[in-house]
C-alpha cells in the first residue's frame, strides 16, 4: 500500500502532498487505487504527471560514462551533457556517439559542450567581421545589419550630456530631474573610477542663455548653449543638427571650425540623457541615430555598473564572456509598468555604440535643491544654421491653456449650489462683484459644475471644471475669499482655507462653512451679492476687511 491513498483526499490537498512522492512504483499503485476508487480525471492526470516527472528525474541520474547513447534521443543527450563538466568524459561520449548512431546534431551538442567547459582560449575562433556590403552583395541597401553612419571603433568617450528642455520661458521640471540624477551618477562615477568626468548641460532656443544659471544650480559642470531667434519653437531638423555638431566638436568627426575646442577633447559623449517628452523623444531618436548609437527610450531608472556579456556579436568570440565597464544600465517599464527591462548599449568589436543614450520619463527622479553658488564653465556654441533646416516652419501655434488660473488673484468670489433657484442670475451677480474689485476672478464649487442647471449662453462659458476650487480643483490663497451658497464640504475647504479672510454668504447659518469663515452673512445670496457689490464700489468693503486684518 502506498503512503497516500488518493481516494481519501481532495484534489486540492493531493497536489502538494504528491510532490513529496519520488517513487514511480508507489505512484503507480496510487494511480491504480484511484482508478478502482473514485476515478477522478484530474487526480489521475496529477498522478500521471508526477510519474512522468519522477521517471524523468531518474533518467537524469544516468551515468554519462556508461549510458547507452543509441537508446537516447538527441534532446536527451543535449540535456545530459549540459550537466557534465569533465571534458574527458565528454570526449568519451563524443567518441561513443561517433561509433554509434553518428547523429550530426548530437555531435554538435557534445562538441559545443566541450568547448564551453574548456573555455575558448586563444584558439577560439574569432567571429569574422564582414562589412554588410560584402556580406550581402545582392542587396543595394543591406539592412540586416544596421548601416552605420560613422563606423567609428575604439574612440574615446567622456562625460554625461543632458539635453535640457525649456517650455514657455521655463526650464521644464524633467530637465531639473535629469540634471540632479546626472550629478549623482557622475559623482559616484568619478569616485568609482577615479575619474574627472563632467555633467554637460545643453540648451537651445531663442533665449537659451537665460537658463545657464539654472542648469548650473541644478548640477551642470559645463553648459553649452546656442541661441537663435529661429529656435524659439522646437523643430527637429535644426535641433538635431546642432546637438549632433556639439557632440562631435573636438573629436574625430568634428565639423569645420570645431576641430579644436578647448572644452572638449574626446570623440563624443559617453552618455546622453534626453527628456521623454514629445520633443525630447523626437530629438533623442534623431541625435542617437546620427551619432551612430542606440537609444533606450522612456526610461525610469539609470545606474552605472559593469556588465558581464556573453553575446558573441558583442564579445567577438563565441562562448566567451567579457566584462564591460562603466555601462549605463537603463531601466524601462514594459507591459504598462508591470515589468521592467534593463537596456544596455554596448560596443561591438568593430563598431562603437556610444553615446549610451536614454530618454527619461518625466517625474522618474527627484528635483534636487538648486545651489545657486555652484559654478560651471559656460560655452556659447558658435555655429551657422543652414536655412534649409528651417524649411519646415511653424506658421501658427496655440498654447493649450492650463485652464483658468485663479491662484494669483487678490480676491476670489465663489458660488455654490445656493444659486440653484436661478443659476444664471447667480453667476451674473457673482461676476458683478468680481468686476467691482481690481484683481478678482470667479470660482465655483464642484456642486455647481456637476449640476443639471440650465445656464444661459452668456454665463455658460464660466461653468467648467477650470474654475473648481477644492481637492480635485484649484487651491487658492487670496486675500479675500467670498463663498456664496457653498456649504463648505471638506473637499471644498482644502481649496480655500488658506485665504486670509473668508466671507460666507449662506441662508443656513449652521452650514459647515461657518467653521472656517471669518465672517458669515446669513442671507439669500440673490440679495446679499448686489449689496456687497455696491459696498465694494463705494470702497466700504475693502475698508472693512483691511480693518479686520489688524
Amino acid at each position, binding site marked *: 500500500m502506498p503512503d497516500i491513498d488518493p481516494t481519501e483526499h481532495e484534489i486540492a490537498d493531493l497536489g*502538494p502532498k504528491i510532490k513529496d512522492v519520488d517513487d514511480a512504483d508507489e505512484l503507480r499503485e496510487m494511480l491504480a487505487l484511484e482508478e478502482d476508487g473514485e476515478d477522478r480525471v484530474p487526480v489521475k492526470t496529477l498522478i500521471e504527471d508526477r510519474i512522468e516527472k519522477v521517471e524523468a528525474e531518474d533518467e537524469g541520474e544516468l551515468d554519462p560514462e556508461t549510458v547507452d547513447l543509441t537508446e537516447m534521443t538527441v534532446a536527451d543527450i543535449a540535456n545530459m551533457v549540459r550537466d557534465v563538466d569533465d571534458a574527458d568524459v565528454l570526449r568519451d561520449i563524443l567518441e561513443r556517439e561517433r561509433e554509434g548512431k553518428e547523429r550530426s546534431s548530437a555531435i554538435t551538442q557534445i562538441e559545443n559542450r566541450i568547448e564551453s567547459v574548456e573555455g575558448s582560449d586563444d584558439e577560439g575562433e574569432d567571429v569574422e567581421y564582414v562589412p554588410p556590403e560584402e556580406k550581402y552583395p545582392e542587396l543595394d541597401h543591406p539592412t540586416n545589419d544596421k548601416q552605420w553612419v560613422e563606423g567609428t571603433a575604439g574612440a574615446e568617450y567622456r562625460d554625461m550630456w543632458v539635453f535640457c528642455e525649456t517650455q514657455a520661458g521655463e526650464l521644464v521640471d524633467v530637465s531639473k530631474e535629469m540634471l540632479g540624477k546626472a550629478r549623482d551618477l557622475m559623482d559616484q562615477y568619478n569616485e568609482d573610477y577615479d575619474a574627472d568626468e563632467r555633467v554637460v548641460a545643453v540648451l537651445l532656443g531663442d533665449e537659451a542663455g537665460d537658463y545657464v544659471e539654472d542648469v548650473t544650480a541644478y548640477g551642470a559642470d559645463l553648459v553649452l548653449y546656442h541661441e537663435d531667434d529661429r529656435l524659439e519653437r522646437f523643430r527637429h531638423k535644426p535641433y538635431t543638427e546642432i546637438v549632433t555638431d556639439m557632440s562631435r566638436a573636438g573629436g574625430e568627426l568634428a565639423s569645420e571650425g570645431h576641430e579644436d575646442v578647448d572644452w572638449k577633447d574626446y570623440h563624443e559623449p559617453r552618455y546622453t540623457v534626453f527628456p521623454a517628452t514629445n520633443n525630447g523623444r523626437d530629438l533623442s531618436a534623431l541625435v542617437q541615430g546620427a551619432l551612430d548609437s542606440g537609444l533606450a527610450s522612456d526610461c525610469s531608472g539609470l545606474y552605472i555598473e559593469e556588465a558581464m556579456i556573453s553575446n558573441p556579436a558583442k564579445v567577438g568570440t563565441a562562448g566567451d564572456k567579457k566584462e564591460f565597464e562603466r555601462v549605463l544600465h537603463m531601466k524601462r517599464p514594459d507591459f504598462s509598468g508591470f515589468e521592467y527591462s534593463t537596456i544596455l548599449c554596448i560596443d561591438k568589436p568593430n563598431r562603437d555604440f556610444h553615446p549610451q543614450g536614454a530618454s527619461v520619463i518625466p517625474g522618474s527622479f527627484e528635483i534636487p535643491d538648486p545651489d545657486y553658488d555652484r559654478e560651471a564653465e559656460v560655452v556659447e556654441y558658435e555655429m551657422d544654421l543652414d536655412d534649409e533646416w528651417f524649411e519646415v516652419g511653424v506658421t501658427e501655434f496655440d498654447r493649450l491653456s492650463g485652464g483658468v488660473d485663479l491662484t494669483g488673484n487678490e480676491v476670489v468670489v465663489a458660488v455654490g449650489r445656493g444659486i440653484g433657484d436661478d443659476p444664471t442670475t447667480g453667476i451674473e451677480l457673482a461676476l458683478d462683484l468680481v468686476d467691482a474689485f481690481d484683481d478678482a476672478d470667479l470660482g465655483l464649487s464642484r456642486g455647481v459644475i456637476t449640476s443639471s442647471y440650465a445656464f444661459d449662453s452668456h454665463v455658460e462659458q464660466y461653468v467648467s471644471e477650470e474654475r473648481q476650487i477644492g481637492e480635485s480643483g484649484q487651491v487658492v490663497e487670496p486675500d479675500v475669499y467670498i463663498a456664496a451658497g457653498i456649504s463648505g464640504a471638506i473637499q471644498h475647504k482644502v481649496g480655500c482655507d488658506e485665504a486670509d479672510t473668508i466671507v460666507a454668504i449662506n441662508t443656513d447659518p449652521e452650514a459647515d462653512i461657518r467653521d472656517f469663515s471669518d465672517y458669515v452673512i446669513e442671507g439669500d445670496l440673490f440679495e446679499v451679492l448686489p449689496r456687497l457689490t455696491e459696498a465694494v464700489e463705494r470702497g466700504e468693503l475693502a475698508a472693512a476687511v483691511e480693518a479686520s486684518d489688524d
Partner: protein
Amino acid sequence: MTDHERYEAVVVGCGPGGAAAAANLARNGVETLVLERGVDAGSKNVSGGLIYAEESAPYTIDGLFPDFREEASERPVTENYIHNVAGDKVKTFDIGDLHHHDTAWADSVLRRRMDSWLARRVHELTRETGGGLLTEVHVTGLLREKGEIVGVTCEELDPIEADIVVAADGVNSELARDAGLMDWEDPDEWFQGVKAVAEMDPDVVDERFDIDEDEGEAHLFSGDLFDGVRGGGFLYTNEASLSIGTVFHLDSIAEERAEPQELLDSLLTHPLMAQWLGDDYHEVEYSAKLVPDSKKAALTAPHQDRLVVVGDAAGQMQAQGPIIKGMNHAVTAGALAAEAFADARSRGDPHRAGEFYEKKLHDEGVMDKLRPTSYRAVGKIGELGPIDGVANAVAESAVGRFGVRAAEGLVERAYNSPTLVSMIPDTKLPYVTLPTILGEELGERVTDENHVQPPELDDRIGDLTYDVGDPHIELVDNSFEASGTAVTACPVSAKDFGGGCYRDEMVQTNGHEEHLVSLDTQPCVECGTCAVVADTDWEHPAGGKGVEFEQG
C-alpha cells in the same frame, strides 16, 4: 490571426471566488494570470463579514489556503442571536442551531485584510505557473474572435487571450453582462448591503460581549426599526472593531424611497445597541455593495464559450433566511471551475470546461443550495400580492398573535430550520410583520439609553479615500422619473443633500420647470445600486481609481 498576449487561464477579480479559482488552477499546473482592478485586492470589496466553511462543500477557503484562519480572519463566531424588534421591545432567539447546521466553522472577516492576504498567496502560486496577479487593471469586456469568446479586453493593457476566462468580478459583473448572461434591470433580484465599521479596543470587545479573545458573536436584527423596508441588520465582532450593517431587498428600498444611511442609523441608535456600542462610537468606514439574491439571480448555466462565471458575478449569493452566504459559495464555485478546466484539459478539450463546471455545480449540490426547489414551490407563491396580504392580515389578527404567543418554542425552532428559512418568501411578512409581532407579544422592553451619534453623510464621504478618475457612470436619462430613485437609494446621496452622487434639481428651461437629477461620481462607493434603479451607462472605474476601502 492577431497576435495577443496569451495565458492558459485568465481570472478576473481577486475576491474569494477569483482567489479560489486561481489557487486551484495553479495547483493543477495551469498558467494563470489574475487581473484585479483595485490598488490592492480587497480595496474594492465589502461584506458583512462571516465566512462559512460548510461541511457539505467540496472546497473551503482554509482547504485551499491552509493558514487562512490564523492569518486572514478576525474571530470565530461562537454565539448567534436574532433580535425581533418592535419599538423598544425586543425578543431575542438563539439561532445557534441554524448557524451550526452544516457549518465546520465560521469566522468574521474584514475584506481588505482578508483579500490582500489571499492575493499574496495567489500571486505566489500563480507565479510558479508563469502567470501572476496584476492589480490596478480594469477588465472592460470580452475579447471575441469570429463571434466566440477567446479572452478579455482591458483599460490598461492590450487584449489577452486564454483557454479559459474565469469571471470572478463580483456583483455588477461587466463580463457576465457582456456575455449577455446578466442584465441589471430587475431590482428584486438584488439586495443592497450597507455597513459601518466601528473601531473598538479588543479588550473592550471582549468585555462588552463577555467573550474571550478567541470567541466572537453574530447578532441579527429584524422588525419595525427599518420603516417597513424588507431586510434586516447585523452586528459582528472583529478583533478590534465591530461590523454593523443592513441588508435590504433593493426593490423595497426603491419602492419606499428609503435612505439607506438613515436605515443604518436607525439600527445604530436603537436602545438595544447601547450595551455594545457604548458612549464612544467611532466609525472608521462607511461602505456599501449590492448583493445578488441567488434564488432569483443565480445563473443556471454560468458559462459561455471559454467563459465561466463564479461567485457574485454568477449570482451565487445565498440568503439562507437571515444568514448570508456569498463568500463560501464563491470559493466553491471558483475551485470547481478550476477543477472543470483541469478535467477538460486532461481530456484534450480545454474549451469544454464550462459544461463540466455546470455539471459539478449540480453534482456537488451547490445549485440546490442557491436555487432551492422548496423556494420555487412555496416562496414564489407567497410573494404574489393577494396571498401575502392575507398572510399579513392573519399574522396581524388576534388569532395570529395568539398563535405566536402560544408557539414561542415553535418559532425559535422554525428560525433554526435551514429548510424553512430558505423557503421564506420575499415579502413583508417574514421580514417585518412577523418579527414585529414577535417583539410586541414576547419582547422585553430595553431601557438602555443609546448615545451614539452616527456621522452625517458628508463626514462619511469625507472619511473615505478616493483617487478620482474619469466619471465611470453616465446618466442616460436625467429625468427624475427615470433616475430619481437613485437620489434616495444611492447610499452616498440623499434628498436635500448637495454633496452626494445623485441630486434632484428643479430646473427652469424656456419658461417651464423640469424635475431633473444630476450626477457627480466622485463620492461614489461603487455599490452598483444606480446600475439597477436608474437609467445609466454603468461601468467600474479604471484600474486603481475610485474609492479605496481600508476595512471592507
